């Protein structure tokens, strides 16, 4: 049998994509999930704050996933759990293995990639020192704590002020650990202000901006001490600024990387800025009929946005299967001043219904600024913003009727102070 759609990954992106494709009329849909349950990383994110946009209420991670799993249960979407995808290819074949069914090659009319992302590790940032037990990514520690019921440490220093690190500062504190410091390389936090207040300030945990860990010392195989230094403008440690912490644990919250090994191996064109696939306005990749959505495309701040993007991908996969291949010339979106990346990277104007959604991140903190879309030197449209920061994904809606005025084959998105 050939599936209408195979969704790789049963986290928030995969769930929303499958539900949406079903709603749009696809009947033979399969989700392949490597874990023993659906929901992905949300299962370990037991804190609240999810769903304010999507459901207009504050849910915990498992509750947010639960809403979508309930929706999925009302459809005829098939699910394979405990199953690993080893390979996908441009012919829409999906190689999977599982203990239950062995090695199988599945065929599909369309595929949605929803593999999510992974955490950057100590090795990726090259922290000097001993390499003992006690250095964990925040997400691994979160899994041990919230799902397995173990504390990875009692005296903790956190490197990186991304949201997972902040959330873990509070969780470890609530469970009786002493969190000594949160140390951030950049001069600003990568996390939400709300998490700085509720996860650090509520508990009197100091946040050291423009600081980093410069040494990790072990005693008898476990972390026993770390040294932290303030950094100069070139991010080099300033001698004499060292702070010394006796601790047993270092948690790392130093960024997420889209998990695209399957994507690369399938020969899908990648964007080095996002570490994700290059996608069109409907989340289709460079290989026709293969779509991508969620954190595998670009790392999102809020799961609500993942769901919205994935629903668009699901609908587009349904349209691809039911109506055939999307055609049309594509406009490339060029990153102008202070714009780090955009998603989508390309827009096929003929396929844009009323407007195209464009997501992007700025490279620095802005107050009272404008986002400009230009066709060559001509200003197509501008959008005002009171506040922008690299940690906050920006979203603009570009009307079709303005896209129709574009004469060149590219438009530029840039940001500047007003």
């Amino acid at each position, binding site marked *: 049998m050939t599936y209408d759609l195979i969704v790789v990954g049963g986290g928030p992106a995969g769930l929303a994509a499958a539900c949406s494709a079903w709603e749009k009329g696809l009947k033979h849909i399969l989700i392949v999930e*490597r874990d023993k349950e659906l929901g992905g990383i949300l299962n370990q994110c037991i804190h609240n704050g999810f769903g304010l946009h999507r459901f207009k209420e504050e849910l915990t991670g498992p509750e947010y996933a639960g809403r979508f799993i309930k929706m999925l249960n009302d459809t005829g979407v098939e699910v394979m759990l*405990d199953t*690993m995808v*080893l390979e996908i290819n441009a012919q829409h074949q999906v*190689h999977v*293995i*599982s*203990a*239950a*069914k*062995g*090695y199988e090659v599945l065929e599909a009319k369309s595929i949605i990639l929803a593999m999510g992302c*992974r*955490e950057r*590790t*100590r*090795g*990726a940032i*090259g922290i*000097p*020192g*001993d*390499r*003992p*037990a*006690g250095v*964990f*990514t925040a*997400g*691994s520690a979160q*899994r*041990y*704590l919230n799902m*397995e*019921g*173990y*504390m*990875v*440490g*009692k005296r903790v220093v956190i490197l990186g002020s991304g949201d997972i690190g902040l959330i873990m500062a509070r969780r470890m504190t609530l*469970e*009786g650990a002493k969190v000594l410091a949160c140390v951030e390389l950049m001069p600003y936090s990568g996390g939400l202000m709300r998490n700085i207040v509720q996860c650090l300030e509520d508990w009197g945990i100091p946040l050291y901006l423009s600081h980093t860990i*410069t040494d990790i*010392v*072990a005693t*008898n*195989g*476990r972390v026993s001490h770390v040294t932290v230094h303030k950094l100069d403008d070139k991010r080099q*440690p300033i001698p004499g600024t060292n702070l010394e912490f006796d601790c*047993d*644990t270092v948690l790392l919250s130093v960024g997420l990387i889209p998990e695209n*090994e399957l994507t*690369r191996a399938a020969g899908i064109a990648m964007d080095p800025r996002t570490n994700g696939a290059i996608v069109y306005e409907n989340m289709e990749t460079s290989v026709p009929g293969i779509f991508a959505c969620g954190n595998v495309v670009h790392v999102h701040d809020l799961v609500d946005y993942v769901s919205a993007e994935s629903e668009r991908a699901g609908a587009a996969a349904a349209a691809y299967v039911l109506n055939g291949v999307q055609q049309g010339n594509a406009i490339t979106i060029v990153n102008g001043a202070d714009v780090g990346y955009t998603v989508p990277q390309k827009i096929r104007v003929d396929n844009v219904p009323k407007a195209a959604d464009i997501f992007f991140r700025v490279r620095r903190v802005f107050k009272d600024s404008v986002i400009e879309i230009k066709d060559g030197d001509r200003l197509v449209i501008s959008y005002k913003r009171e506040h922008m920061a690299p940690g906050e994904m920006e979203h603009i809606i570009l009307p079709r009727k303005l896209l129709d005025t574009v004469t060149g084959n590219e438009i530029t998105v840039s940001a500047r102070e007003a």
Partner: protein
Amino acid sequence: MYDVCIIGCGVIGAATAFELSKYQADVLVLEKENDVAMGASRANSAIIHAGYDPKPGTLMARLNVEGNAMAEQLCKDLSVPFSRIGSLVLAFTEEEEATVKMLYERGVQNGVPGLKIINADEIHEMEPEVSKDVRSALYAPSAGIITPWDYTLAFAETAVRNGVKVTLNARVTNIEKLPEGGYRLTTPQGVFEAKYVINAAGVHSGEIHEMVAEKTFTVCPNRGEYYVMDKSECFRAHHVLFQCPNKDGKGVLVTPTMDHNLLVGPNAEGVEDGDRVNNTAAGMAFVREKAYKTMQTINYRNAIRNFAGIRANTDKDEFQIGIAAENFIDLAGIKSPGLSSAPAIALEAVKLLSQCGFNPEKKANPITTREKKRFRFMNDEERREAIKENPAYGRVICRCETVTEGEILDAIHSPIPPCSVDGIKRRAGTGMGRCQGGFCGPRVVDILARELHLDPMTITQDGAGSQLLLAETKQEVSAK
């Protein structure tokens, strides 16, 4: 009383144990750590050198070339990842070109096969990413890359299957000569007696030597630091790319590994503590700076791990191999090219035992092969078969390296059972990849605890004391 006690289960001790296990002899290996291959054998450049580097006429020269020649068949028989990809020693200056010529001459004298000096065009044909500044290179087709901890494990496991006893957590603290001949060795695991003792204690071989003999050499522990790069960087090198050796060693190299990563390093720095393998900001910066000369394109954002290893360098420009005292053999001060020489050093040990008067009969049919399932290197058909045979091969635990539960179970139930997450890593390959065990770590802990009937809180990352989990949550339970 054992016939032979080998102190140290690095690659030298393990290769010697394997060689002796082919004879009718009671052999004991004492290892101070909680696993084998815990010193220099697991943290090095993972190269089987061709043998043009050591001075002609030295033991190092002969044993390197012999060990290199033995590696291929041994790795085939013992299922150790090995590939004879060849090496280049790159010359960037006139002076270095002279060094390359000198190495060529040495290599020819040492009996290294197939050596050739090649020009810049030929180099770039073979290695397009190498710096445009390169002038010429020594090409040694017999150099290879290997998984060094698995080489050690293969020797040790096969020796155990042949009846050798390996005792872990057994640091030798005292050696006493027995009046009736033989030695008594004291360890935290008890006291052991053996007629013959072989000192393969690596960076501690000086201390062991001095327990029975006058000091004749000094171990000078020397640390080398490395970068391991993601598989996406592996394409940059197809051969082992050396720079010209200098007084500090063979210099910074760039090489692919058997796991398709790119390895960059090492520096060379004398250190006090031969057991401390920390990385330093200065050492890592040095490696990046020196490697830049070989190749400007390496993207360090794609680094997945740093590590450091300790070389058992000595004040002598030679391996310290010989009879140190009555019935006591030193395989000491085994620095580079020790890994390459290991199987040849083992044969040397058998010869020295014979000189001491120990000439056991060969066993009729000793085990000399090892099978190992590696799902990631199987083709589709082999994978289908493996899962059919045992469904555990269908459950991927380490998703970066595609290591299955079946391979983890094989490791746990192997002849030298591991007790740590890194013990599983060395045997099965879990956690070696880009997420560095972030995903599979908790699952490996779970499987280890389940299979060994242990509390997860006792499972270590690596050596003794390196527990991962420090407490259970929700401690004060009362019925409700």
